[in-house]
């Protein structure tokens, strides 16, 4: 390898104190500077860090934003999430391919532009969308493509250097459609932290428990309990990690919080730092939101100037706390808290065995609380306004408000802050959805709800959700959507365990067969069996929910499947004629069919 490349890599490794735990940052920087991560680069990284090459390859090969092959100077990631496909992604893809004369997955001959697909980038409210060198551009139509390519070739607007500038070149609409009291009401910086630091850490945690705050990622674990476990656990250091890796297709609420209320989030992380006895907070930001880094860094810097981060925060003697941002690199499974921690430690984002749980054995094996962006905002607000104030919103077991990312077939897609307990019917009215065929609550890993259940409520007592709501109108092909969801899980499976890795591949094959019109009722039974094995036997939350698109539609929309599977007889998984075609050609004659 060229001497200068090797010294560039060594320099980067040094920048991160030759710390193996910072391998993600090192790899991201190597990729940014050299355009890709070659075998040679990996070898240099491994040597400089004193770890085996196979460990570096393990990490680099895991994340979709790392490329081990030379890419173009500019990379266009076209988002192929379900909603993007519903709103003309294919036409945009054709326009790109035609204009550049190359198919997706390849690079132009002059080495200038690479075309790639990527799953949901958090822009489902403004499809179709692309990331150009990590800078999002949304609501594009085929006619825009020529202009975009011209801009790229000029190298100005979408240049790599601009991806993290403090004023992003991104074209993203905010789409905050309903501002509620908890997250999007006005706030004054420092109030929540001061309110926390005049109490003992224990009473801060008590206040959250009193408020009934539960995790907003979807699982609904009581936040006060999580913080209490973490605070009590013994360790050399405690950590608060904010999970801003919202990867569930159709969710983008964190994007809106991070742009509209980042101070509230950092306020919440600082309150957590005080309550847990942590000195360091880490914001794990999904790679798709790279464009927000510059903006968020500036806000953190402001807070340091105001004495809201750093030494003796808000003048409280001995309360030292700061926050750093860690970028992800394209892996849905890192939304699972133990995968996220592995990723933070510079490894592949494979979930850990649980127990032990992160609250006792987390980041660097120290007690760690991992909380959703929205949860931390709620925590700040509870400290500011009190548990009783918070409890007036929502239901008995689901207090407060919930942000919903609404996309798909409705008039007003965007983020809505609603009280917990809202009926699906009411929500549909609010967002201008006219008698849809189905509503996907909680994204692909959630439930596909049929109209007969539109009276159900969004809350932990009924249908819990991380916030993704995708609406499917009457004309949509629901099973085609189920297939796309299943493809997503298959690609995003970490591959650690058999049921998720192999099971999702198998149900995809069976579903394909059914959609091709070669399904039988035996295939439906098989889908159900394998689906349940995936659900029951998988190791982590991704696997346990990966069959949900199929299982929930088999339950709620069974007729769609039955219409395609009329026979009870066995139909082989392959097309017999096709399978023997090559042999027939070689033999030069048709096979002799034996008669009974």
């Amino acid at each position, binding site marked *: 390898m060229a001497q200068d490349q090797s010294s560039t890599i060594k320099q980067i490794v040094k920048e991160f104190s030759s710390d193996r735990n910072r391998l993600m940052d090192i790899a991201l920087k190597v990729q940014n500077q050299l355009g890709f991560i070659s*075998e*040679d680069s990996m*070898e240099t990284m491994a040597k400089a860090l004193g770890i*085996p*090459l*196979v*460990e570096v*390859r*393990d990490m680099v*090969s*895991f994340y979709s934003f790392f490329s081990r092959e030379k890419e173009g100077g500019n990379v266009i990631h076209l988002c192929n999430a379900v909603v993007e496909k519903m709103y003309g992604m294919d036409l945009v893809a054709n326009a790109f391919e035609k204009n550049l004369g190359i198919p997706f997955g390849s690079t132009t001959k002059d080495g200038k532009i690479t075309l790639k697909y990527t799953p949901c980038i958090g822009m489902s409210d403004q499809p179709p969308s692309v990331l150009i060198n990590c800078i999002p551009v949304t609501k594009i139509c085929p006619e825009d493509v020529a202009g975009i390519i011209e801009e790229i070739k000029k190298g100005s607007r979408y240049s790599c250097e601009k991806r993290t500038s403090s004023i992003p070149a991104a074209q993203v609409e905010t789409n905050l459609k309903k501002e509620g009291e908890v997250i999007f009401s006005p706030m004054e910086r420092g109030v929540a932290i001061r309110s926390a630091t005049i109490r003992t850490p224990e009473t801060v945690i008590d206040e959250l428990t009193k408020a009934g705050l539960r995790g907003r990622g979807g699982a609904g674990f009581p936040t006060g309990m999580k913080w209490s476990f973490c605070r009590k656990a013994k360790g050399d250091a405690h950590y608060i990690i904010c999970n801003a890796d919202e990867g569930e297709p159709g969710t983008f609420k964190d994007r809106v919080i991070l742009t509209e209320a980042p101070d509230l989030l950092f306020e919440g992380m600082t309150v957590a730092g005080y309550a847990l006895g942590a000195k360091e907070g880490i914001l794990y930001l999904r790679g798709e939101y790279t464009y927000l880094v510059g903006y968020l860094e500036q806000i953190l810097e402001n807070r340091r100037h105001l004495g809201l981060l750093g030494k003796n925060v808000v003048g409280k003697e001995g309360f030292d706390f700061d926050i750093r941002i860690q970028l992800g690199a394209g*892996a849905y499974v890192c939304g699972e808290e133990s995968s996220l921690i592995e990723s933070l430690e510079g490894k*592949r984002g494979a979930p850990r*065995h649980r*127990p032990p749980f992160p609250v006792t054995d987390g980041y660097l094996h120290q007690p760690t609380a991992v909380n959703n962006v929205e949860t931390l905002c709620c925590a700040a607000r509870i400290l500011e306004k009190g548990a009783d104030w918070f409890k007036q919103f929502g239901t008995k077991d689901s207090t407060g408000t919930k942000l919903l990312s609404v996309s798909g077939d409705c008039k007003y897609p965007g983020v809505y802050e609603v009280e917990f307990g809202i009926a699906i019917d009411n929500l549909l009215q609010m967002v201008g959805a006219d008698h849809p065929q189905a509503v996907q609550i909680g994204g692909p890993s959630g439930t596909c709800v049929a109209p007969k259940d539109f009276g159900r409520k969004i809350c932990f007592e009924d249908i819990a959700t991380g916030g993704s709501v995708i609406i499917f109108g009457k004309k949509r092909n629901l099973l085609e959507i189920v297939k796309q969801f299943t493809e997503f899980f*298959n*690609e*995003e*499976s*970490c*591959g*650690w*365990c*058999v*049921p998720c*890795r*192999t*099971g*999702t*591949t*198998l149900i995809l*094959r*069976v579903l394909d*067969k059914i959609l091709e019109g070669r399904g039988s009722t035996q295939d439906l039974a*098989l889908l159900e*069996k*394998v689906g349940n*094995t995936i659900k*029951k*036997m*998988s*190791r982590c939350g991704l696997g346990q929910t990966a069959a949900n698109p199929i299982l929930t539609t088999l339950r709620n929309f069974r007729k769609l499947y039955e219409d395609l599977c009329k026979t009870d007889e066995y139909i082989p*998984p*392959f097309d017999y004629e096709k399978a023997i075609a090559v042999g027939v050609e070689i033999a030069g004659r048709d096979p002799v069919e034996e008669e009974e």
Partner: protein
Amino acid sequence: MDKFTIIIDGKEIDAKAGQTIMEAAIDAGIYIPHLCFHEELIPGGHCRVCTVMVNGRPQSACTHPAAEGMVIENDTEELLEERRRLIEMLFVEGNHFCPFCEKQGNCELQALAYRFGMLAPTLPYLNRKIEVDASHPDVFIDRNRCVLCGRCVRASRDVDGKSVFGFEGRGPDKRIAVNAKDELLSDTQLNAVDKAASICPTGSIVVKRVGYAIPYGKRKFDHEPIGSEIEKSASKK
């Protein structure tokens, strides 16, 4: 040491603090079927075959710590069906041809299939094209037979201290990689006497020239089903 009891399939057994369910079960002579677990290695939790119901919830016995008063279901019809399906998944994911594999009779995958009564796979074959690496003078790796149990990865890293093997990629593309720039086993530090060379449960990593030293019919699982050793130890207790 703290001792307590747990219940497996209605039977009270002793367990010690720090033990996993698997370890406590083996000590008590109860066989919990497993594939990626190996007594000399830290557990991986890959295959999920050892999944048991712990107080009604599925958990992998190899990784889950035993705790006082746990009620565990292991030998049930329902779990047998799930375990059989997992083994079937592995059979269709890779390319396994038992009759001419030198590991047959000693293969844990095959032995589990027999024990679970897997007659013929009911799942569609994936028919993947997978390369074979015979570059190493003494050991070959045939990823057609790999079940991604990670035993070689753990053994090489934790026992041999070499990290010859690692994982690569994700999802259906996940594979075993080797610690060499051009991905050839011959360029690694692997030695035929290493733990990693002999710990593969299937015929994926095998030492060359000894495959037929013991003829078919006289091999470990030709005599008795997998798990018998553990079960026999119970009758002695």
